[in-house]
């Protein structure tokens, strides 16, 4: 009986502990505030926090265009870390693409960074045709994910038009997330 209770207790407690750890780690990354005056060099390494300037980077889009943080300034931007086979990301991408059509195609930048090294440029283009918006920028991860401490697929940074991080999200893009994008776009008008 004692052994049964122990095993049943472990089986019940383990998932709860793990879920709690995930929830707490997600909460921490989305609520930690960086000093407003922190120099960019101070946040280049490690996970950037909400209200900090997103670290500078340089990625090559599948079309060959070079994308940097500064080239995305001027409108709200989502920097999305994913893989073509990630189902929650596909579902979220469809929703965000739909929202972008509603808000106006030119009101939002979306940079999708693919972290699976086994994928090809044609995989990325097919993904965009199936799930995304034709204006979205697609790039292979060039060490950016590691540099800023990304650990989860479907990690998304929402940047304001000035490049400052407004939100960091690691779960499926649901209605709450869409509302956040909508308010970022409205605020930048």
């Amino acid at each position, binding site marked *: 009986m004692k052994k049964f209770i122990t095993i049943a207790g472990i089986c019940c407690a383990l998932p709860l502990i793990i879920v709690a750890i995930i929830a707490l780690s997600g909460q921490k990354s989305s609520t930690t505030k960086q000093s407003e005056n922190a120099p960019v060099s101070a946040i280049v390494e490690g996970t950037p926090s909400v209200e900090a300037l997103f670290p500078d980077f340089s990625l090559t889009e599948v079309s060959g265009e070079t994308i940097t943080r500064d080239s995305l300034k001027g409108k709200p931007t989502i920097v999305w870390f994913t893989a073509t086979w990630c*189902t929650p990301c596909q579902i979220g991408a469809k929703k965000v693409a739909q929202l972008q059509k509603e808000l106006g195609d030119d009101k939002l930048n979306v940079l999708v960074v693919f*972290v699976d*090294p086994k994928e090809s440029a044609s995989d990325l283009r097919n993904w965009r045709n199936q799930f995304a918006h034709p204006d979205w920028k697609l790039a292979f991860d060039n060490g950016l994910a590691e540099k800023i401490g990304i650990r989860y*697929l479907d990690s998304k940074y929402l940047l304001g038009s000035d490049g400052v991080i407004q939100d960091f999200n690691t*779960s*499926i893009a649901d209605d709450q997330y869409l509302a956040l994008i909508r308010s970022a776009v409205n605020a930048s008008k």
Partner: protein
Amino acid sequence: MKNILIFKMWRYTLPALAALATMIAIFFWPALPLRGITNWFVIYANTPYLTFLYPAIAILSGVYMGLYTYNKKVAPCCSIETIKGGAAGSFVGVFLGACPACIPVIAILLPLAFNVFLSRIAPIFSVVSIAILLLVIYKMNGFKRFA
């Protein structure tokens, strides 16, 4: 047929409750990290391999827990040395088979590259989990006929 242990155990309250509770808990637990049952159902419905494999993992884990309870509470039917194997099978299926991309439990300890690799081969984990659970249930005499 009715006397095969995996069916027979449902006649007893405790094993039946343990099995049912485990099945429900395992099937619905991804809703917790995914922040809602709707998100889980959307992902479940859109991930082809999950459609059949994940319910199988939930059902087999439930049967395993039911057999364990039957052995403890109703009548000794089997050696309980296989308990660890069954728990391992459930663990593999639940944490690595059920869309690790959505439930990044392993990412707490591992770098992104390894997480991506494990996520890509998640269907294999689901199949391995089912195989382990079937083997453990067999070892627990779950498919044996009892009078």
